[in-house]
C-alpha cells in the first residue's frame, strides 16, 4: 500500500518537472533545463542478458522502519506513525545501504534476515536527503555475519541490463530485468540539485511492499530505485557512481555531502545571445544567469553574463553538455555535483565580454538550512510560537507540501511564489520568512479568525527575520500591546500582553498544545 502510494506521487513528480521546464525560462543548476521526460522510444540492440544474478551471492536484508512525520499544519505534534518495509544492500564494514526517503522521520529502524526472519535494531549512521542515500548499521554487530558484502558496479552504461531485486514474503528472490535507456542528470526528491541517474525501462511488479529496491548487474550493486512510474514502466535509479561518492564521504568522520557552485545558467544556442555576450571564437558554453550570494561561484568572482566554456579540460557545448568518457554527452553540472567533492577547486574557463579568463571555484555544500525558505526539513521538529492563539511558523517547503502532490497550485499562492523566487526576492539571504499560519480561536483572537497565511514583517516595531526575532520582540510590548505588522491585509494586528499571559494556559489546554512555543 505504502509503496503504491509512493509511486503514484512519483508519477506526479515527473509530470510536474516537465511542466516547469516548459513554462519557466530558468534552466540552471537548481531548476532543470530540459529533463527529457521520456526515454527514447527506440530500443537499442540488446546484448545477451548481462544482468544475470546468482541469488546466493546477493546480500540483501530487510529493513523495517517505523516513523512519524512532523505535522506542519499542527507543528506541536507528529502525524500518525507509518511503517515502511524495504530491502537494503549489505556493504562492507557491516553497513546496509538504503534510500534516505526510507529512514526520513524514523523513530525505529530494524533489520531482518530474509532467510531466517531474525531481527535486530539498527542505527542510521549517515543520511543524505539530497542524494537520497542512507547507511544503517545493526546494533548487533554479528547480525550480518555470513552475508558477503556487495561490491559496486560502476561501469553501467546505456544499453546495459540491470536487475531489480525484491523478495517474496517467503524470502525467495524476485528478479526483474530492465534496460538502461538513458544516463543523465535528473532532479532528486529533495529538489535542491540535480544528480546523475539511470533511466531504466522495466516492467516491474511490486512485491512485499518494498520501499528501497536495489538494482544489480553481474551480482554487483548497480543502483537503488529512485522512482518508478508503472504506467510508462520507466524506472529512475540512483546510480552506483553517486553511491560511491556518498560512501567515500561517509568514510570521512565529518560527512560533508555533495558540493555545489551556486549559479544558474542558460544555454547559448542562440547566436544573437552569444554575440550580445561578446563571445568570440568557437561557439559553446553556458550563459551565467544568476549567482547565489556567498556561494563558491560568486566568491570566485563569477559574474552574471559570463560564459562558462569549460571546467578543467572538459569543454562545455552550447547546450551545457560536456563529453563524459563513460556516458558521452552529459550536462556539465555532473562535473560539479557528482564528480567533485566539497573543498575541491575546479578551474572554470570563462569568457567575459569576449576575454577568456580562469576562475578557480572552491566547491561548498549548500545545506537546506542555508536557504531563506528551506527546500526540505527532515527529522527535526518544526519551530512555532503561539501568541494568544495566533500561530507563527517559519515558511518552509515542507509546510507548503502539506497541501499534497499538487501543492504548487493548492498552497497559498503568495507563499509558493516566495519559495520559488526566494533567491531573487531575498538576495541577501541569511534570514527566514515568518508567517502566521492559523488562528486558534480565543478571547485574545476574537475577530481575527478570518486571517491566516500572513507574512509577518514587524512586531513591536522590530523587523522579523526569524521565529526567534518574533519571540524576542513579543517580549517587548509597547504600552501593553503587542503590535504585529503583516505584509498582507489587514497590515496590523494587536494583542494585549497581559491578556495573552493570562490566557496562555487555557489556550494550551483547550487546544492540547504541549508547549506554546518551540524554538530550535
Amino acid at each position, binding site marked *: 500500500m505504502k509503496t503504491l502510494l509512493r509511486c503514484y506521487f512519483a508519477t506526479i513528480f515527473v509530470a510536474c518537472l516537465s*511542466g516547469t521546464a*516548459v*513554462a*519557466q*525560462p*530558468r*534552466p540552471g543548476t537548481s531548476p532543470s533545463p530540459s529533463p527529457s521526460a521520456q526515454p527514447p522510444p527506440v530500443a537499442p540492440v540488446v546484448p545477451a542478458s548481462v544482468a544475470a544474478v546468482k541469488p546466493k551471492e546477493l546480500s540483501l536484508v530487510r529493513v523495517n522502519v517505523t516513523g512519524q512525520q512532523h505535522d506542519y499544519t499542527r507543528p506541536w505534534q507528529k502525524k500518525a506513525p507509518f511503517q515502511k518495509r524495504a530491502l537494503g544492500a549489505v556493504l562492507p564494514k557491516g553497513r546496509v545501504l538504503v534510500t534516505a526517503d526510507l529512514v526520513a522521520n524514523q523513530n525505529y529502524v530494524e533489520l531482518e534476515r530474509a532467510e531466517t526472519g531474525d531481527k535486530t535494531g539498527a542505527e542510521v549512521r549517515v543520511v543524505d536527503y539530497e542524494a537520497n542515500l542512507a547507511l544503517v548499521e545493526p546494533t548487533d554487530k554479528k547480525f550480518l555475519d555470513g552475508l558477503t558484502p556487495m561490491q559496486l558496479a560502476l561501469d553501467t552504461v546505456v544499453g546495459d541490463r540491470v536487475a531489480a531485486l525484491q523478495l517474496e514474503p517467503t524470502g525467495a528472490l524476485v528478479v526483474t530485468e530492465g534496460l538502461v535507456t538513458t544516463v543523465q542528470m535528473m532532479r532528486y526528491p529533495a529538489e535542491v540539485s540535480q544528480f546523475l541517474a539511470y533511466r531504466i525501462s522495466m516492467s516491474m511488479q511490486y512485491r512485499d511492499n518494498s520501499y528501497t529496491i536495489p538494482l544489480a548487474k553481474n551480482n554487483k550493486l548497480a543502483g537503488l530505485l529512485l522512482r518508478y512510474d508503472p504506467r510508462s514502466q520507466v524506472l529512475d535509479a540512483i546510480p552506483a557512481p553517486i553511491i560511491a561518492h556518498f560512501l567515500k564521504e561517509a568514510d570521512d568522520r565529518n560527512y560533508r555531502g555533495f558540493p555545489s557552485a551556486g549559479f*544558474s545558467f*542558460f544555454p547559448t*544556442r*542562440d*547566436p*544573437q*545571445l552569444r*554575440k*550580445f555576450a561578446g563571445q568570440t571564437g568557437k561557439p559553446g558554453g553556458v*550563459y551565467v*544567469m*544568476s549567482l547565489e550570494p556567498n556561494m563558491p561561484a560568486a566568491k570566485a568572482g563569477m559574474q552574471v*553574463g559570463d560564459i562558462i566554456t569549460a571546467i578543467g579540460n572538459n569543454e562545455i557545448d552550447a547546450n551545457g553538455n560536456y563529453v563524459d568518457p563513460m556516458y558521452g554527452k552529459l550536462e556539465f553540472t555532473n562535473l560539479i555535483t557528482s564528480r567533485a567533492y566539497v573543498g575541491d577547486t575546479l578551474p572554470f574557463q570563462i569568457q567575459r565580454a569576449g576575454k577568456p579568463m580562469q576562475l578557480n571555484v572552491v566547491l561548498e555544500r549548500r545545506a537546506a538550512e542555508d536557504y531563506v525558505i528551506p527546500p526540505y526539513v527532515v527529522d527535526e521538529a518544526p519551530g512555532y510560537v503561539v501568541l494568544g492563539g495566533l500561530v507563527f511558523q517559519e515558511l518552509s517547503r515542507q509546510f507548503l507540501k502539506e497541501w499534497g502532490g499538487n501543492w*504548487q497550485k493548492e498552497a497559498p*499562492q*503568495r507563499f*509558493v*511564489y516566495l519559495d*520559488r*523566487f526566494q533567491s*531573487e526576492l531575498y538576495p541577501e539571504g541569511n534570514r527566514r520568512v515568518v508567517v502566521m499560519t492559523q488562528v486558534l480561536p480565543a478571547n*485574545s*483572537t*476574537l*475577530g*481575527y479568525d*478570518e486571517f491566516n497565511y500572513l507574512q509577518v514583517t514587524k512586531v513591536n516595531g522590530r523587523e522579523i527575520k526569524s521565529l526567534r526575532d518574533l519571540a524576542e520582540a513579543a517580549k517587548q510590548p509597547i*504600552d501593553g*500591546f503587542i*503590535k504585529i505588522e503583516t505584509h*498582507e*491585509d*489587514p*497590515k*496590523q*494586528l*494587536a*494583542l*494585549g500582553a497581559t*491578556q495573552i499571559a493570562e490566557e496562555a494556559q487555557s489556550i494550551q489546554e483547550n487546544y492540547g498544545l504541549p508547549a506554546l512555543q518551540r524554538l530550535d
Partner: protein
Amino acid sequence: VPEFDFRGICLIFSDFRLMRRFCLSISLLFVAVAAAIAQPNGKVQQSVVRISANDLQPDYRAPWNAGALQRGTGAGFLIDGGRIMTNAHVVSNSRYLTVERENDPNKYPARVLFVAHDCDLALIEVASPEFQKNMVPLTFGGIPELESTVSAYGYPIGGQRMSVTTGIVSRIDFQLYTHSAIDQHLAIQISAQINPGNSGGPVMQNGKVVGVAFQGYSGDVAQGVAYMIPTPVINRFLKDVSDGRYDRYVDLGITYSKLQNPVQRRSLGLAEDDRGVLVNTVIAGSASDPHIKSGDVLLAIDDHPIASDSFVELEGARVEMPEVVERKFKGDKVKLDLLRDKKPMTVTVELGPLLPYLIQGHSYDVRPRFVLYGGLLFQPLSLDLMQAYQPQDLRLRHYFDFFVSEQIYLEHPEVIVLTNILADPINTYHAPYRGSIVNEINGQKIRTLDDLAKAFAQPAEQVVIRMVGDGPPLVLDTKEVEAARERIKTRYNVSREQNLSAELPPKPAVGQDQP
C-alpha cells in the same frame, strides 16, 4: 467567490455544454408557460422583446483576426424614451443586433445606446417607428419584500415563444456580477426558474419591473438559484447615462477589515463601542489616495456611523459600507470621519473609478491590443489573456492574481507578456522566453504596450529585451527582424503587426428605412 456559470444565462446556441446543462429544466418550463396562458398579462407580454445578437468574440491567441462569429439570444423590455433595457452580456461584442416581439412577424435591426459592463445592463434602440406600435413602456418598482411573488419574462430555452415563470424573493445580498467577474453589487435571488435566454428580461411584481434577470447557478452547482439586478442598480445606471455617457461605478479604492477585537480597538484608541473599520491598503492613484492612509479607522461615511462589522444603516436597512459609495457618481464627494493616530479628523474624497483592478475582469467591445515583433507576440496581461492561454508560469500567475494587492501596477501599469512565438529562423531559440514579462528594452523601462511599441520603433542595431527575473536578455538583430517581417506576415497570415488602441472599428448604421 461562488462558482457561477460564466456566461451568465445568455443562450449561446453553439455551446452544447450549456444546452445539455439546462435541458433538465425544460419540462418545468412547459408547466410555467401553461400557467402564463391561463393568467395572461397582455401589457407586459407586448413590451417584452427577444434580442438576437451576432457577436465577434475576440481571439487573444490570434489578436490580428476579427474573431469568431457567435449568435446568442436574450430578452429585453421597453422603457421610457423608446429605449429597450437588457443585460450588457446580451449585447456585448455584438456587431449586429435584431429585435423581435410577440405577434409581429418582423425582425427589427437595433443599435446599442449604452452598455455598462460593471453592472451588466445595457440600453438599445430600434430606429423603426413601426416597432413601438401597441407597446407600452414598463416602469420600475422598488425592492420587493422577501417571500413576495415575482414573475420572470423572457425567451429561454424550451420553445420559440415568450415564457413566464414565477417564484418568490429568496435573498437580498451583495453578489459578484459574473459578466465582468470583478464587480459586486446588490442582487436579488429569486426562486423563479430562469434559464439561458431569460437574460435581460423583466422580473415583474404588481405590474412594475422590480429587477432584470441576469445570472444563476447551473443546476449541477445549486438548484433553483437565480439572480436579478434590483432597481437601485438599474436606477443608478439610468441616472449615470442621463448625461449621454456611462461613467462606470466609482470606488473609494481602499481595502478595510472589521474591528471586532477589543484589544485591537484599544490599541487604536477607539471607544468601547462597536464602531469603526480599519483601513488596510489605499490603492495608489485611487480616489482615497492621499486623503486616507493605511491604519486609519473609518468611523462614519456621509454621517452614517460605520459599525465594527463594516455595516451602515441606510434608509432603515443595514447594508455594507460600500453601498453608500455605490449610489454615487463620478465626481461626487463622500465625507469620511476617521481616526488617524488616535486623533479624529474628517476628510472629503472626490470619487472616481478604480482602474488597476480592471485587468482582473473581462473586457468587452474592445479589440485585443498587441505588438508583433520578429515573430514574438507581446500582449498586456488581462483576465481574457489568462483564459485564452491558461499559462502555468508561476510568476505570470502571481503578477495577475496580485496585480492590485501587491501594487504591481505601480511599476507595471500594464504587464507586457511575451505570449506566443510565430516560429521563424530569427526566433528559433527564443521558446524558453515564452510567458516572460518584459521589463526593459535597450535600457528603457517598459510600463505599457505603447512604451514597447515606441522602444521597437527606435533606430538601433539590436534590441535587447530584459525580462522580469533572472533570465538572460532576449536579443534581436533589427536588420534581421526587418528582413523577416514580410516572411512572417505571409506565413502566418497576419493582417496587422500591432494594435495599440482597444477601440473597435465603427459599426455600420442600422437602416432607418427598414420595416
